């Protein structure tokens, strides 16, 4: 009885298997697609659209800050009632702009757009898998993100404006609708959108981890994984552990706002009237929020660092320096990320001793970060560097990572933080080390893997121009901003014209704003290059950067399942560049040692005996599923 049924189920699986190869209709192919490559592109395009919106917002408030006398009437067609008849930006809307810029850039662009794009695209292609562990969950992940995007976008058009309590949405400001026009419906939509976003990130992250651990091809042991995959794996683990905590804090905030509980609220008087809420603690929210918030910084940054490792090694034509140290430092950063959250809260009245503990832990992060910095530089040292746009952006990332990281050492001091907390010094610090560095990682990744994504090349010259304008622009914006911060300019202020101490820095603020506008304009070079090249770019060869990783052994336009026929087996790590004695200056991972006798080291010759064993290994090939 059971044997027959077993047969039946086996047959059932067979029909499912054939179903894979049936022609898909438009909806299955492009909309509710379960193929990781299409989902990656969906993430990328959505992320780019959000980036345009998010950066445009920053330009509007930079004009307000740097050129306070300018007439903004020309923005009336877009912003409508938020620009007064005299051409002035509405102060409430200024706060909303700052909030939405932060939310959009941190979550929608640099989390979903960066990790969503490259984890989805590269994990199956680089570990040698047909697709993600669960294509369905992956598809859901994108559509939850899309739904979150729609809700957040809709909140921009509310008459009372979107959320305006800062991207960290501290209560009581965010909990009380009376506090600010944006704390009403705008905040409600913000919370709904973020809850969906968290679901999306969890679905995606669980999939990434499962895929990396279970679907690697034959021979792809952990010590042969490209560093990109290591970084995506660690990023996903960070997200898996920290996003549920954000969900917790958001949930309690929703209860406070809509059901009248007092988790975060206590003893509040509005117009002399006491609110009924007693016994809550706003500091509790900060603890919960920053337990996500700090790992989130690394969720944003680590994929960029992984992409950089890969691009720098490929284009220096040298093995990555300190492969194991790179992995160890990423693990170290990930571990430390969970025990430093209170350095965002030094001025909340925290016990100074506790502050010292968190300061100490925070400063330790400098060690693994420095290991990474030095490893990048030593990889470049004496390499045959090829300055592709992807390479330029990767080197740029290292530069931003170092210069932004240095100010982190200053801010990590609990004593110095009393002066610098919530000033433009903080803004400059995290924009360099997290914002711009991760954005450079995103650019590097797009330039480097564009040929694999779309089968065409982007224009190199335009890419190089884009790099130099962006790189110089970023420094022109954020280096002066440190000075403004030391001078005491607080964040999130609508204007600085009414204080004596800020007068003499007005020209510096104007300089920052003009630099910001110029670097914003430079991004249109990228946008044009990107969209033009998708349709009209030069056709890409199979391995344009002469790289070692598995994705370049797949066809130029990989179909569903990535490889035609068998998935290649892996015999070596992914960094055999410029190996002495080798015919070419790169040896892809799928070339066995038995074919490269001229360049093998003695211990590698011994590994030849293992090749038969590797070929006969079991692995999860989703096309030959049990």
């Amino acid at each position, binding site marked *: 009885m059971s044997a027959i049924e077993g047969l039946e189920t086996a047959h059932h699986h067979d029909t499912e298997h054939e179903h894979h190869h049936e022609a898909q209709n438009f909806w299955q192919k492009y909309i509710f697609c379960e193929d990781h490559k299409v989902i990656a592109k969906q993430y990328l395009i959505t992320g780019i659209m959000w980036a345009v919106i998010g950066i445009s917002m920053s330009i509007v408030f930079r004009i307000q800050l740097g050129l306070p006398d300018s007439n903004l009437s020309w923005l009336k067609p877009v912003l409508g009632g938020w620009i007064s008849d005299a051409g002035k930006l509405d102060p409430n809307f200024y706060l909303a702009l700052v909030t939405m810029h932060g939310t959009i850039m941190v979550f929608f662009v640099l989390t979903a757009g960066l990790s969503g794009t490259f984890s989805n695209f590269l994990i199956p292609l680089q570990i040698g898998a047909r697709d993600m*562990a669960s294509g369905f969950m992956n598809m859901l992940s994108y559509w939850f993100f899309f739904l979150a995007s729609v809700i957040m976008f809709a909140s921009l058009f509310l008459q009372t404006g979107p959320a305006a309590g800062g991207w960290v949405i501290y209560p009581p400001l965010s909990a009380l609708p009376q506090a600010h026009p944006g704390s009403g419906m705008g905040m409600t939509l913000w919370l709904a959108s973020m809850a969906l976003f968290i679901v999306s990130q969890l679905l995606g*992250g669980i999939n990434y981890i*499962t895929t990396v651990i279970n679907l690697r091809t034959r021979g792809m*042991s952990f010590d042969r994984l490209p560093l990109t995959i290591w970084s995506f794996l660690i990023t996903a683990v960070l997200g898996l552990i920290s996003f549920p905590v954000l969900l917790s804090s958001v949930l309690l905030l929703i209860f406070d706002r809509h059901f009248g509980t007092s988790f975060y609220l206590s003893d509040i008087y509005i117009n002399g009237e006491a609110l009924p809420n007693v016994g809550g603690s706003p500091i509790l929210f900060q603890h919960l929020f920053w337990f996500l918030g700090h790992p989130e910084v690394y969720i944003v940054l680590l994929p960029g660092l992984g992409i950089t490792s890969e691009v720098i090694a490929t284009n220096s034509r040298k093995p990555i320096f300190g492969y194991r140290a790179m992995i160890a430092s990423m693990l170290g950063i990930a571990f430390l990320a969970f025990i430093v959250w209170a350095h965002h809260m030094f001025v909340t009245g925290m016990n100074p001793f506790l502050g010292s503990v968190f300061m100490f832990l925070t400063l330790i992060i400098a060690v693994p970060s420095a290991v990474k910095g030095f490893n990048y530089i030593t990889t470049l040292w004496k390499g045959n560097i090829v300055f592709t746009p992807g390479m330029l952006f990767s080197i740029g990332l290292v530069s931003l990572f170092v210069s932004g990281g240095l100010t982190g050492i200053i801010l990590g001091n609990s004593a110095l933080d009393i002066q610098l907390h919530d000033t433009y010094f903080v803004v400059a610090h995290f924009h360099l080390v997290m914002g711009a560095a991760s954005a450079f990682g995103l650019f590097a990744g797009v330039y480097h893997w564009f040929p694999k994504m779309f089968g065409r090349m982007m224009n190199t010259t335009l890419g190089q121009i884009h790099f130099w304008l962006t790189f110089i622009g970023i420094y022109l914006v954020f280096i002066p901003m440190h000075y403004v911060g030391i001078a005491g300019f607080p964040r999130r202020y609508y204007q600085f014209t009414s204080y004596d101490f800020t007068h003499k820095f007005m020209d510096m603020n104007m300089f920052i704003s003009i630099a910001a506008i110029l670097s914003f304009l430079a991004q249109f070079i990228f946008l044009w290059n990107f969209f033009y090249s998708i349709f009209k770019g030069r056709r890409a060869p199979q391995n344009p950067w002469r790289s070692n990783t598995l994705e370049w052994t797949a066809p130029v336009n990989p179909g569903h399942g990535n490889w035609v026929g068998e998935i290649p087996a892996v015999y070596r790590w992914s960094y055999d560049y410029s190996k002495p004695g080798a015919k070419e200056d790169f040896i892809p991972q799928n070339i066995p040692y038995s074919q490269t006798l001229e360049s093998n080291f003695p211990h590698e010759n011994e590994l030849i005996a293992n090749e038969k064993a590797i070929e006969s290994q079991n*692995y*999860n090939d989703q096309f030959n599923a049990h």
Partner: protein
Amino acid sequence: MESVQQYKVEREPQETLAMDPKKFILWLFLVSIIMLFASQTSAYLVRRAEGNWLEFEMPKIFWYSTAVLLVSSAAMQWAYFSAKKDLFKQLKIAISITFALGLVFLWMQFEGWKQLVAMNVYFVGNPSGSFFYVFTGLHGFHIISGLIVLLFSLTAAFNLRVHGKNLRRIQICATYWHFLDILWLYLFVFLLTFN
């Protein structure tokens, strides 16, 4: 001779780890639920340490609901063993008991809420009461999701699609159900200890 053999075994290349991806996904999902409740309970402790904390005795019915959930977990394990041995009749009985006790548990939790209200402990008020409702409510929400997973296994069991050669579905179901049981035990002991 033996040592040579062992040496050879060691030299063989490591196989890439290949667990069942679906089960692996379940375990990661459990990690995220653990983090959700870990953050809730630590928020509880942080808030409690600040004082102004309403203390109240947990209604007795939560003791009984805990027992019900434990029995349902045992029934789930019985169902799994029956499926393994292709004992279809017992499988059907066991999985039905599990499902029914799951529903009973939910109803008892709801009764517990009613008794709390009768004790003047409300969702809106001192955070100590609010947290109690949030913990039980969040757990109840997960029990509902567990019941949905259970329902799939239940219909599969009644259509004879769960048997010794097709255990994945009921394994996933059993793991999740036991997890929810352990999670409730944790919350129960936690709420008893730090009331």
